[in-house]
Each structure stands twice: as C-alpha cells, then as structure tokens.
C-alpha cells in the first residue's frame, strides 16, 4: 500500500466513524433508552452494505476503501460489547442476551441480503 492509499483509508475511515456517530445518535434519541437500538441499526445496515460490496467484483483498492475503511469503520464491535456488558452489569440480563442474539442472527442475515442484492445488480 502506498501513502496515498493509506491517507485514503484514514480519511474514509474517519467519515465512516462520523456517520456511525450521527446515525447512532439519531436512532437512539427516537427509541427507548433501555436497549441500544442505535448501535444495532448501525451494525445491521453496515452488514448489508458490506455483504453488497463483497458480492460485487470490485478492484482491490475500491474494496479496501469502500469495504474495509468506510463500512468497517461505520460498524463497531467494541460499542456492541460495551453496551452488552453494561446492560448485564445493571442486571438487565434479557436485554443483554437479546442484544447478542439479535445482532448475530440479523448480522449474518443482513450480510446475506447484501450479497443477494449484489447478485441482482
């Protein structure tokens, strides 16, 4: 990877994080506080997008920027884990378990959906 590509990864990755921040806040402010709907929305929409991108035959550079940098940064594993751990700490055992199960089931289904869409394009 050359320096221009690395700079591109940084810039696009920064944009992905800002998008996550905005979507998370927009969703979380409209939904119940008791469940992390914001992160769930970000992660599931991101899984659809990455399934779509990986289903298209893109060049290495485009796949790196759009997939790894943009969508990779847009979704998050760390916040998903933190929010789940904090729910269980507050003895919200069912919301914590639901956050894991719903994310995993919808996550793989979302990636499949994205790939299916890519196949129709």
């Amino acid at each position, binding site marked *: 990877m050359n320096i221009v590509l690395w700079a591109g990864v*940084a810039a696009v990755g920064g944009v992905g994080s*800002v998008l996550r921040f905005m979507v998370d806040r927009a969703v979380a402010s409209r939904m119940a506080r008791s469940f992390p709907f914001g992160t769930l929305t970000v992660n599931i929409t991101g899984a659809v997008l990455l399934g779509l991108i990986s289903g298209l035959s893109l060049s290495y550079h485009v796949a790196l920027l759009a997939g*790894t940098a943009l969508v990779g940064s847009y979704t998050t594993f760390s916040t998903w884990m933190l929010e789940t751990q904090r729910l269980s700490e507050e003895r919200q055992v069912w919301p914590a378990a639901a956050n894991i199960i719903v994310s995993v089931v919808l996550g793989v289904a979302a990636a499949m959906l994205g790939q299916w869409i890519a196949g129709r394009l």
Partner: protein
Amino acid sequence: MFAYDRRELIAVFAGGALGAVFRAGLAELAAPDPARWPWPTFTANIVGAFLLGYFTTRLLERLPLSSYRRPMLGTGLCGGLTTFSTMQVETLRMLEHHHYGLAIGYTVVSITAGLAAVYLATALVRRVRVRR
C-alpha cells in the same frame, strides 16, 4: 435534526481515521481465507473492546469530564478499530464453505472474549480507584 458540535465531529473523525488505519494494517497481514481463523479482525475487535472498556470507565468514572476525549478515543478510535460488518461477512463466508464449526467458534469466542475484555478493563480501572 441535531445541532452537531463541529469539534466533537472532528474528534470522532480523527480517532476513527487512526483506528481504520490500524485495522487496515492488520488486515494486510493475512489474506482472507474462509477455512482459517480471521486473526486480523479478531485481534482488532478484542483489543478495541478492551480499550473501550478502559477509556469509557476511566473517562466517566475517574477523570474530570472532557467534551472531546470520549468522542475521540471511544467513538472514534475504538469504533474505527473494531468492526461488526467484517466479522459477519467472514462468518457468512465460513458458512458458505461449510466450515460450520469454525463459524460458530469464531462467533462464540469473539463475543466471549469481547465481553471478558470489557469486563477486565472496567474492573482494572475501578480497582485502582478503590485503592486510592
């Protein structure tokens, strides 16, 4: 819509840019292979979960409130370093190639290790506080 604090957005952008570069650098180390354990994604995710547990607990419970440290280190750096979408697509690839055990193992171990990392980092910060 919301009134966004421009400096907060810049903090998220800067942290996210750095996190994405670290993650992309890790991804360069191993070619994607649905028959193998995805070490780059796994490492980024677990390290990022530990760091987020550490930063969040320390910034919220120990240090004086700052407006920009949390968006930069938590939302930006840890959010950009870790990824959910790549993990799901990797799991889907494993399932498509009939590596069912690997797919289940990858999902279960990632979640278990991720939760343990957050728990450990949180306990570490809180233990230091109790001692003082």
